[in-house]
């Protein structure tokens, strides 16, 4: 451990975060002192003040920096909370269009990756530790040769790139080595969509959704609400449209339950081919399809025509959104339908993907040709045309389709250089590995999904000696090492072509403060190519195979860099509640046909891969029958102890057709008789005749009451002098994205306990997202469930030592240092929201201590814990208000879950103040409390979901 720790400390010292180190020591000392008995002189502590105090920083007061996190190359704005120079928490950046103040689970968890002691620390050569200088030397010679060959053997492989600086640098390299090629590998992306767009627009174009203008949305396996670069924004926009009049409608066709299905007015389980058929039928009804799709008789035709009428009724305010699993033909159809429905430029903006500038003779710039895909690179590697390959933050050896066999190609490359956060599969297969700096450790910039440029601002010096991609590319292009900081500033100085240094500094400072450096231009819409639109469609899909595998992005682990993140690993998947694992998801009927139960291991084989892979199944209600969904991102062999050896690698079965890596494949399924024990956090998803989740019909929104009559009490209600904190959760707005759960974990130092403990039912999440399968359609209802802060708290009466009690603002307080661990409170809690430290779960790694929120106690073994309504934030706000001699205002206290929620489903505040947002929410007729009959009088209440009868596609609602 010490070997791992040393660099942390030294780097921290270098940038003077000794306050941080002090806290590190303090926490470690604490854990040492607390362990075992509670007595004994505390170990002597050092206080290390700054040598010179950085301006605007006071020890003990958090400082927020605006920065940007990358999601598939696109930027998502965040605010990073630092405590004495140590980044400890991530919030959304309200000024950034991709965040609007919200942050998703992946962004929240980035803090853990940042501090991950298993990140790569040294330059490696052929598996041996090497140095940056040796790399430079050999690189110099290598590039010399390349220069001679005009870069004929030089290849650059990266993920999708939006950073203006990086694009410029790539442009430089391509200019300097005309024969060199740039390839982009985007395992989480969708080649079919790109291909379709290429055909229609003649260039790389991405659809940008403007759901706030949408009234009727048809999602076909689309991961609208993330995790992706635009997920937060889509969720936010769609929920706003839902709150408006008329209420926006969502129709979801899904092969496996996704977040859209949960909020859909009608959700229908269909295989990708089925969805394509639906698109065909819609297209032909709208008359935009030359191929007259065979009208399938029966109910499907019926609801498709209803759907069609609804879509065309909402002309210009509808959106047909195909997802990854659909073929490029289906995407073409979708574009046509959207064009016909007049959605282009309204709800769907086709925007051009940014390309590196290619300098022209006259000094002006032109866009370089679009990057090639992975297929072309592998081809070149097999042909032996690649001498030098630089791989920036990609892991193709693991996450490229098995059909490509990237590793074999790579072995034929003379000089392969990998740069990444971890020593992953590709790092081990390459000649060189360069540790990369985390987004929060190095300067850069990025564009969001809508083109807004923001700065990637480091909040701490590289903890493990990582380098920035800019520095490496600068090396490649000019054989010099300017700091990323200089490079980025130079880039923007040119972009603004400013010579006035002062003016530049002012604008730069402003950009740093807001995080946004350049607003999106609205005029970047790409016109659709009419000819291509009219062109004949390719042949429809052949006869559907009996079983088709769909390769889906995992809900939590989207990129390889997130795989070693224990928070994301332990975060239950929205529908299966599986942690630490991926599973082959199948429908009940399919399972029945093969006689499978949850956890039975099956072998999946395809025509190309007769040996196939072994995968345990999980039966999901609402899964399309005949479809087995295989989440990607698991079955890692390298890349950290957390990532390795979990789940199965579905890439093996992934096929490639004319350069596109396909998202589905025909497979055969055979039970093996083996069994795999999953660690799931929720076992019963039926309602068992209870009403924890409720819904009211749309038009009774203000009429009928969702709440039960409050039972009488023997005692008069307590009068609270000051604020009476309370919370509401809007079940109609909750999309089950889990962001709140991770935000809570990050804010409150909640440990992750590992798969074994989860399997024993000992997960520690204070905020758990319950899922109930309300109806057979598999349309689920999510319910964020944390401590309800009951007025008549059952937990408090039974605690023998008064470790849980009410404070004068009505909080149900848990006093860790008083708790002896009888666990009686948990037994008596009807919501079972209390969590217990059965073992010493707290992470005692110094990096964890440095990461921990210093305002929240790190809990000892044997004590109970639970949601505190972020009491530390309440005290902070109260103290600030008191110092200013003013009462607390609504919004002064924002809990971690509330802050991060993309749809503002969670509202927290003072229920004693009738004008507060929470009081207004509680006044709604949809407001109800769970298990009210027990007379616990919870402070947390829920707003019943709205059931829009008219929106349904079912027979009876028709007409």
């Amino acid at each position, binding site marked *: 451990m010490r070997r791992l720790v040393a660099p942390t400390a030294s780097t921290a010292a270098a940038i003077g975060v000794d306050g941080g180190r002090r806290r590190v020591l303090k926490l470690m000392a604490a854990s040492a002192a607390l362990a075992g008995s509670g007595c004994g002189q505390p170990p002597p502590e050092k206080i290390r003040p700054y040598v010179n105090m950085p301006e605007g920083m006071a020890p003990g007061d958090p400082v927020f920096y605006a920065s940007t996190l990358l999601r598939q190359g696109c930027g998502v704005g965040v605010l990073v909370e630092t405590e004495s120079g140590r980044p400890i928490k991530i919030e959304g950046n309200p000024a950034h269009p991709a965040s609007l103040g919200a942050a998703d689970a992946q962004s929240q968890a980035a803090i853990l990756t940042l501090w991950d002691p298993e990140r790569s620390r040294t330059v490696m050569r052929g598996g041996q530790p090497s140095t940056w200088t040796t790399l430079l030397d050999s690189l110099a010679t290598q590039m010399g040769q390349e220069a001679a060959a005009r870069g004929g053997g030089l290849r650059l492989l990266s993920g999708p790139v939006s950073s203006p600086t990086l694009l410029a640098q790539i442009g430089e390299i391509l200019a300097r080595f005309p024969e060199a090629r740039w390839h982009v590998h985007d395992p989480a992306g969708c080649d079919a969509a790109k291909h379709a767009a290429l055909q229609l627009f003649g260039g790389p174009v991405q659809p940008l959704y403007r759901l706030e203008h949408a009234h009727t949305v048809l999602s076909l396996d689309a991961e609208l609400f993330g995790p992706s670069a635009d997920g937060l924004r889509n969720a936010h926009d769609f929920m706003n449209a839902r709150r408006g009049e008329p209420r926006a409608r969502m129709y979801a066709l899904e092969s496996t339950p996704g977040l859209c299905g949960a909020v859909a007015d009608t959700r229908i389980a269909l295989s990708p081919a089925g969805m394509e058929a639906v698109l065909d039928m819609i297209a032909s009804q709208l008359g935009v399809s030359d191929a007259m799709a065979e009208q399938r008789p029966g109910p499907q035709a019926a609801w498709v025509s209803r759907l069609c009428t609804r879509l065309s009724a909402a002309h210009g305010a509808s959106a047909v959104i195909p997802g990854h699993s659909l073929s490029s033909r289906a995407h073409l159809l979708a574009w046509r339908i959207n064009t016909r429905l007049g959605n282009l430029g309204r709800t769907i903006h086709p925007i051009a993907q940014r390309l590196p500038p290619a300098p022209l003779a006259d000094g002006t710039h032109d866009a370089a040709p679009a990057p090639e895909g992975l297929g072309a690179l592998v081809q070149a590697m097999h042909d032996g045309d690649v001498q030098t390959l630089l791989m920036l933050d990609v892991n193709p050896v693991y996450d490229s389709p098995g059909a490509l066999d990237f590793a074999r190609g790579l072995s034929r490359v003379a000089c392969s250089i990998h740069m990444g956060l971890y020593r992953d599969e590709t790092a081990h297969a390459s000649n060189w590995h360069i540790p990369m700096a985390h987004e929060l450790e190095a300067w850069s910039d990025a564009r969001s999904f809508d083109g807004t440029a923001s700065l990637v601002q480091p909040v701490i010096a590289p903890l493990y000696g990582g380098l920035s991609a800019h520095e490496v590319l600068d090396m490649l292009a000019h054989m010099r090492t300017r700091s990323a900081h200089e490079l980025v500033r130079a880039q923007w100085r040119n972009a603004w072509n400013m010579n006035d240094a002062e003016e530049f500094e002012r604008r730069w400072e402003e950009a740093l403060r807001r995080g946004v450096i350049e607003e999106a231009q609205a005029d970047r819409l790409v016109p659709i190519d009419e000819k291509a639109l009219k062109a004949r469609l390719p042949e429809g899909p052949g006869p559907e195979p009996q079983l088709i595998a769909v390769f889906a992005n995992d809900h939590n682990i989207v990129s390889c860099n997130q795989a070693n993140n224990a928070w994301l690993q332990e975060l239950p998947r929205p529908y299966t509640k599986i942690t630490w694992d991926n599973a082959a998801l199948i429908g009940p009927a399919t399972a029945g046909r093969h006689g499978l139960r949850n956890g039975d291991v099956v072998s999946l084989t395809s025509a190309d891969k007769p040996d196939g892979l072994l995968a345990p199944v999980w039966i999901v209600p609402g899964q399309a029958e005949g479809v087995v969904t295989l989440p990607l991102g698991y079955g890692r062999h390298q890349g950290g102890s957390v990532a390795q050896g979990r789940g199965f690698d579905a890439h093996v079965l992934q096929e490639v057709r004319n350069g596109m890596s396909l998202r589905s494949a025909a497979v055969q399924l055979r039970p093996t008789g083996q069994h795999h024990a999953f660690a799931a956090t929720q076992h019963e998803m039926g309602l068992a005749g209870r009403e924890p989740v409720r819904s009211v019909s749309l038009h009774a929104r203000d009429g009928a009451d969702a709440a039960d009559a409050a039972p009488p009490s023997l*005692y008069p209600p*307590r009068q609270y002098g000051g604020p009476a904190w309370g919370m509401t959760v809007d079940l109609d707005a909750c999309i089950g994205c889990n962001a709140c759960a991770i935000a809570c974990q990050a804010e409150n130092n909640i440990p992750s306990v590992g798969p074994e403990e989860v399997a024993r039912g000992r997960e520690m999440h204070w905020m758990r997202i319950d899922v109930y399968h309300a109806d057979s359609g598999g349309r689920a209802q999510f319910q964020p469930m944390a401590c309800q802060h*009951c*007025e*008549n*708290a*059952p*937990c*408090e*009466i039974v605690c023998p030592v*008064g470790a849980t*009690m*009410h*404070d*004068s603002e009505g909080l149900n307080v848990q006093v860790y240092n008083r708790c002896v661990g009888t666990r009686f409170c948990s037994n008596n809690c009807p919501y079972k929201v209390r969590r217990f430290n059965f073992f010493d779960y707290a992470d005692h790694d110094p990096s964890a201590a440095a990461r921990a929120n210093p305002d929240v106690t790190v809990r000892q073994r044997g004590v109970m814990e639970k949601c505190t309504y972020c009491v530390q934030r309440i005290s902070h706000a109260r103290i600030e208000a008191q110092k200013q001699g003013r009462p607390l205002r609504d919004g002064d206290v924002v809990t971690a879950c509330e802050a991060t929620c993309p749809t503002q489903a969670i509202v927290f505040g003072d229920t004693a103040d009738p004008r507060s947002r929470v009081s207004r929410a509680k006044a709604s007729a949809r407001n109800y409390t769970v298990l009210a009959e027990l007379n616990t*009088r919870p402070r947390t209440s829920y707003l019943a979901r709205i059931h829009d009868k008219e929106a349904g596609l079912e027979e009876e609602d028709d007409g």
Partner: protein
Amino acid sequence: MTPRFYGVVGRFETPDALLEAIRCLRRRDRHLRLEAYAPYAVEGLSEALDLPRGKVPLFTLIGGVLGGASGFFMQWYAAVVSFPVNIGGRPLNSWPMFIPVTFEMTILGAALAAVLGMLAVSGLPRLHHPIFDAPCFGLATRDRYFLCLRPPPGMPGPAPAKQYREVLESLGATASDEVWT
């Protein structure tokens, strides 16, 4: 120091013999100092010796009352005066929930008082006692019955040992011995 005369102890074979002897002696002189020893609680023995009722019940009562009162007071003081907190919205003085502890404390106080009182009034523990010097007194805890005849306090003159022995043997004591301290 010169040994003082404690009394004469006579041994009897059966409880009836003992009781008979006591009754005779009492008939002769109400104020004789008699001590009877038996291996179990012989019925009618205390009546024969007309022993006082004893204070053990009173002690027990006091112990119980004290225990109960202090028990309730402790809870009331802790919950209402010393550190009042809102527990599950219940009143500070939720007396119905204080009853179990109060009850247990009552029993505890009473029981302790009963036992300690019993020991106190019967002068136990007393590990050294002249009567133990009497030969075969060990049988008093097996199956023999002893009667000790003691001189009235501050009786002048020589010890009436011989006279006492005759009296006891005449009353059916199978053996009699002098006890000196």
